[in-house]
């Protein structure tokens, strides 16, 4: 089971955090801080796995991916395959971010995550549900997100995502 998905920048500021078992805010902050403490002390060119038992309790592992100014972190237990988890953050989740990052300046990229906060959650909810990897076909994920956007636009008089959606249709 996946316990949490965290995105933070290289200064330790959280940019996106989702915990699949409820954690009070203070605890969330503490966890994020501890994860950052571990990640920032890791050298480059080492493995992407970290034992996280001292942070998240027994039977927990952590996979992270450092990209530009961001860390993408996935915390899960031993019932998940570490390599597959690494691929999960590199794959569907990250590619969205990565594409965004490509387009922007460093700082704005991080901001994008926040601006598209609800969209990021929609995407993640398609991939992971209740801590389980539900859908790993990226095209299926995209289809779902696209469909949500369409319907939202259709049902929405406040049409403030139209621009985006028209882009997708094209």
């Amino acid at each position, binding site marked *: 089971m996946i316990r949490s998905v965290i995105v933070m920048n290289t200064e330790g500021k959280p940019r996106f955090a989702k915990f699949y078992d409820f954690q009070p805010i203070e605890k969330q902050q503490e966890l994020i801080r501890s994860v950052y403490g571990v990640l920032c002390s890791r050298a480059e060119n080492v493995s992407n796995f970290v034992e996280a038992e001292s942070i998240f309790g027994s039977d927990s592992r952590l996979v992270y991916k450092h990209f530009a100014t961001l860390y993408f972190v996935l915390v899960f237990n031993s019932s998940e395959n570490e390599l597959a988890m690494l691929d999960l953050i590199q794959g569907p989740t990250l590619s969205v971010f990565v594409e965004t990052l490509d387009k922007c300046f460093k700082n704005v990229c991080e901001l994008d995550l926040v601006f598209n906060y609800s969209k990021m959650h929609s995407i993640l909810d398609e991939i992971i549900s209740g801590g389980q990897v539900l859908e790993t076909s990226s095209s299926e994920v995209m289809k779902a997100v696209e469909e*949500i956007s369409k319907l939202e636009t259709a049902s929405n008089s406040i049409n403030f995502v139209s621009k985006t959606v028209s882009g997708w249709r094209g």
Partner: protein
Amino acid sequence: MEQLKTIGRELAMGSQGGFGQSKEFLDLIKSIGEARSKAEEERIIIHEMETLKRRLTDPDIPKRKMKEYIIRLVYVEMLGHDASFGYIHAVKMTHDDNLLLKRTGYLAVTLFLNEDHDLIILIVNTIQKDLKSDNYLIVCAALNAVCRLINEETIPAVLPQVVELLGHSKEAVRKKAIMALHRFHQKSPSSISHLLSNFRKRLCDNDPGVMGATLCPLFDLITTDVHSYKDLVVSFVSILKQVAERRLPKSYDYHQMPAPFIQIKLLKILALLGAGDKQASEHMYTVVGDIFKKCDPLSNIGNAVLYQSICCVSSIYPNLKLLEAAADVISRFLKSDSHNLKYMGIDALGRLIKLSPDIAEQHQLAVIDCMEDPDDTLKRKTFELLYTMTKSTNVEVIVDRMIEYMISITDHHYKTYIASRCVKLAEEFAPNNHWFIQTINKVFEHAGDLVNIKVAHDLMRLIAEGFREDGDTVDSELRSSAVESYLRIIGNPKLPSAFLQVICWVLGEYGTADGKYSASYIAGKLCDVAEAYSNDESVKAYAVTALMKVYAFEKMSGRTVDILPECQSLIEELSASNSTDLQQRAYELQATIGLDAEAVGNIMPADASCEDIEIDKDLPFLNSYVQRSLENGAQPYIPESQRNRMDDISAIKSLDQRETVSHGLRFEAYELPKPPVPTSIPPISPAISAELVPVPEPYHPRETHQSTSEPSVSDDGASQVKLRLDGVQKKWGRPTYSSSPGSSVSTSTPTQKAVNGVSQVDNTSTVSSKPTSYASRTPEPEISLEKQKLAASLFGGSSKPEKRAPSAAHKTPKTHHGANKVHAAKTTVVPPEVPPPDLLDLGEATVTSSAPSIDPFMQLEGLLDESQVLSTENSKAVGPNKEPDFMDLFYGTTLSGQGSNFVDLLSSNKDDLDFTSEMSKVAAKTGQGETIVSNSAQFSKGPNVKASLEKDAVVRQMGVNPTSQNPNLFKDLLG
């Protein structure tokens, strides 16, 4: 992938093009992004929160604004600030008809609330409604919320709808419904136990996504109960086969791999189903073999599937061909440049090694490389592997490496873990004791505070016992090397406490044994330790006891003992210490130094820490005595476990008609303030104590009361003292005392009883030589057994009982009581005495019979049971109170009848025992202060007749006469 890129681009553009968000939000995010300090960020957020609080209370916010505010709340909370003031608005938003707003509302509540939050009740209704919605997106949003927000109590409210949704026409809905059910199962397996068949049905869903989702709950179910799902083996195998053969739609391909996540899940399930089941495993061989062949070894996800296949192969019934394939993959992983693959390779190797141990040898070098890798994760994984590979042949290398690594890390959690592993391996595979000691020393030196204290005791025991079979030379070499290494280490700053304790013990015990180091050298080192770690009482205690040993050995060998000035000042300092334990030790040390060589030799026999104590728990030699007593009308012994308070009462009734014991009486007794920890009372025989030690006297009056009921019993020797002290306010005990006793003389009233019951020791000293009293003080047999174990583990079987007990006799002139006691301990000696372990058995009925003529003691007998209950409540106080006695003893003032107490203290003196810890442990374990006494009583076993006779002579010289009430015993004693 193309689409993903598109959405990414769109997102990027969105942020620049406004994307519906207000300038305000944009500025907020920017300013936070640019905030240079935590304080600045805080300020911005607090300002933002105030703005949001103000705006949200405005009744006419446009909906679109509202949505943005909620998102801003989520953002604020992610940054670690409490946004609970806005939760209700998020809840309200879930009620909105607009899809976008509703979804935002659901998103916010799933992030804000936990399943037990008060606001959930407001959402459940909305969820119920939304689950029935025509719009599948609303249903999906509601199902997402269900996964997160429904707890055990609210499951029934949504369960019917969720089950219905399993048949929804949209696969996205079916998927989420399965996940919701899975979540219910995790939260409360019983709530959906009747619905488990649905998972099997969904396994056959047309949509591969739904099928894949079903594997998640099935995996959990199979983990808990393999046997109910064995019938699915064939289905799983055929699904895996289809997936591996690319029968799924192209859209499930991922990096050219067909549905890898589904393959991984299936392989995990097969691993469970095939474990130890040859028949089931045979179905799997072909498909797993195919996967090995087909997997793309270049992509990450391909390797993930390969790794999972290895896990599967190592779990199911072994197949040679598959094992070979797995070994090939592992060697490729290990040779790879990628740390991730190496990591997986090490992990897989650890799994496979259980089946084919030879495989490790091919990869020796790779494993060593991984161990030396700068990557911590990889290192740890490697140590994990090495731990499983350790044999007696390689233990030295592995443990050396582990310790090296342990020293280098700072993470306490892992340091503790690896230290315990080192100790475990060393204990299990140590090639020789010398190595073991060096290894454990290292572990202690670097992680001593993190290691279980038991390891320290084991180490002491090992040094003490050595290799028995190798003879004494080897042992003494071992000890010398230990001493030498400790003398080297001792100067290091900041050694952990447990390690220092070991060092002190070893130096005390063996520091001067080989004559290499002078006593003053060792003593100087010990004083340095006590000084350097002056905050650590247990280290100081160990150091003082070690000093005592060093000087005692010096003395015994006939050399003159010069107390170092620093040692002298240490003793002085500790004599005034706040810790009674340290005080006691300091006084002991002084007293020991003052004795002559022979006495010292008996107190502190050299190298006797391993001498065994034999305890004959059945006490067969007493049988005739017991029989005689029974014939004389004594009550048979009822084991503690079979007694309860009611029994006690009735027993007392039957024993003494005058006593009208009622419940009321009992309650009154318990209401009294806590007793002054009976055992702690100085065991001073009245006559002498009257002259020398005024303090303990207060106890005697009570005694008098007790005996007043049967005047003939009163102790002649003590009578004068008692008379003088009658009515004196008790110093240690309950203030009630002075008032109550005077009045109640002839009958034992409830209060008086309580007094009697409480003052066990008092009783003991009156009746001193009577077995009754000793017996009455013993805890249950189980406890004493437990104690033995505790003692064994604590002190590594190093107690030196035989020699100590007699030495006690030498040391302090003992009264006949003491003599009796020690005498009693001897198995060779006459029946009337109850031997040590039993001496302390509280309320042992058989013993009562020894003094059949004396009714009050029988009363006491009953009362003591009660008093024990009282004293148990008090056990904590026992320790501290005990020590004063001991000092008294050392001043030679105590010619007491409380042999047990006395010996106990002596033994604590000589032993390596950490007295305090012993006390606290015992207290914690048994909740009964008295157990300590029982322990010591065991130590005191086996003195020789001569010693006790000598003692008796001393007593007589001192003018103490046997008390009138135990002439028989005295006769026995003298043979």
